[in-house]
């Protein structure tokens, strides 16, 4: 794997550890361009499955890890495309995102999300696809989708349900509130909380430790303990697409895009 710097992300391999750095201002929102680059990254990642032992995903941007889907692009496309084609386009986008996140989820290496700042919506879902989340104490995790009339669409609920109790999932999903790193650690979402600005260093230290283990054993252990919730992921896409056609969603997206509210992320 050669070092590569794309528009929204960069990647490289050091000492058996792949590092994927997100850098699309302002908050690494995931849109069509990010998706294409994620797909390119996955193709590259698959070439080092036999040799690399770890993958670290982090953000180069100060404000945080990732604020989720690019809602402005989503709204713009919903205005440009006829309803039938809109649904087809949306479903294809979600299926492609799911393929990428599923490849990260099941990758035969240990994956670590090094999180600082916001990990909202799709950003939280990306972190949940990883085996471990290491967060600095300023990180926040949130599923804000209900305030738009939607559910998380990048696989977040099935993955979170796999990892923690249903009451925690309901708290995050149904209130739309954000958890700080301490709370996320307390309920088992985050494996380590570190000082501000130290998440990537801690992730690298963890990756170095993983290099000591037999790869075949680590892969077998991961495959045993971390099944992909395939059926629920399929259901999630169907529910998301069904909800997306409701008028409330367009109104919610418009409100978000045009908002001058100082707190547009709050319900």
């Amino acid at each position, binding site marked *: 794997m050669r070092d590569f710097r794309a528009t929204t992300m960069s990647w490289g391999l050091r000492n058996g550890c792949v590092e994927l750095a997100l850098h699309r201002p302002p908050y690494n929102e995931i849109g069509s361009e990010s998706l294409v680059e994620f797909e390119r990254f996955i193709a590259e990642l698959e070439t080092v499955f036999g040799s690399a032992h770890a993958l670290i995903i982090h953000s180069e941007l100060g404000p945080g890890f990732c604020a989720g889907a690019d809602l402005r692009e989503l709204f713009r496309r919903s205005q440009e495309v006829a309803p039938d084609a809109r649904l087809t386009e949306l479903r294809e986008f979600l299926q492609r995102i799911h393929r990428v996140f599923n490849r990260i989820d099941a990758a035969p290496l240990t994956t670590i999300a090094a999180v600082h700042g916001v990990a909202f919506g799709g950003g939280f879902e990306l972190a949940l696809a990883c085996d471990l989340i290491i967060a600095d*104490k300023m990180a926040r995790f949130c599923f804000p989708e209900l305030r738009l009339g939607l559910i998380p669409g990048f696989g977040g609920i099935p993955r979170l349900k796999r990892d923690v109790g249903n009451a925690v999932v309901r708290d995050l999903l149904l209130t739309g509130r954000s958890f700080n790193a301490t709370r996320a650690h307390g309920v088992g979402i985050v494996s380590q909380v570190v000082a501000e600005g130290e998440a990537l260093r801690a992730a690298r230290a963890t990756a170095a430790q993983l290099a000591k283990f037999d790869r075949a054993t680590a892969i077998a252990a991961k495959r045993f303990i971390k099944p992909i919730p395939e059926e629920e992921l399929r259901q999630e896409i169907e529910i998301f697409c069904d909800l997306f056609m409701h008028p409330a969603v367009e109104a919610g997206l418009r409100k978000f895009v045009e908002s001058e509210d100082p707190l547009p992320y709050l319900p």
Partner: protein
Amino acid sequence: MANLHETTEAILVLAAQHFSVPRAQLSANDDFFKTLGINSLQALDLLTRVENHFHIELPDYELQGVTDFRTLAERIQARL
């Protein structure tokens, strides 16, 4: 337990330090969005610092409509 004045003062100090504003330029009744020139996600950053400082959890929906330091301090007092 800190009283409302002490809690307000602690928030003002946290905000001044993090957003590089002289403490003397901030007062309890200031609109922190305007005084600090911050957006919603930066306000969440302030919330996280406040939560970490006071070892509390304050659901962000409780901040809806809250724009001044004193009211923020009152919300925190209710969780201490």
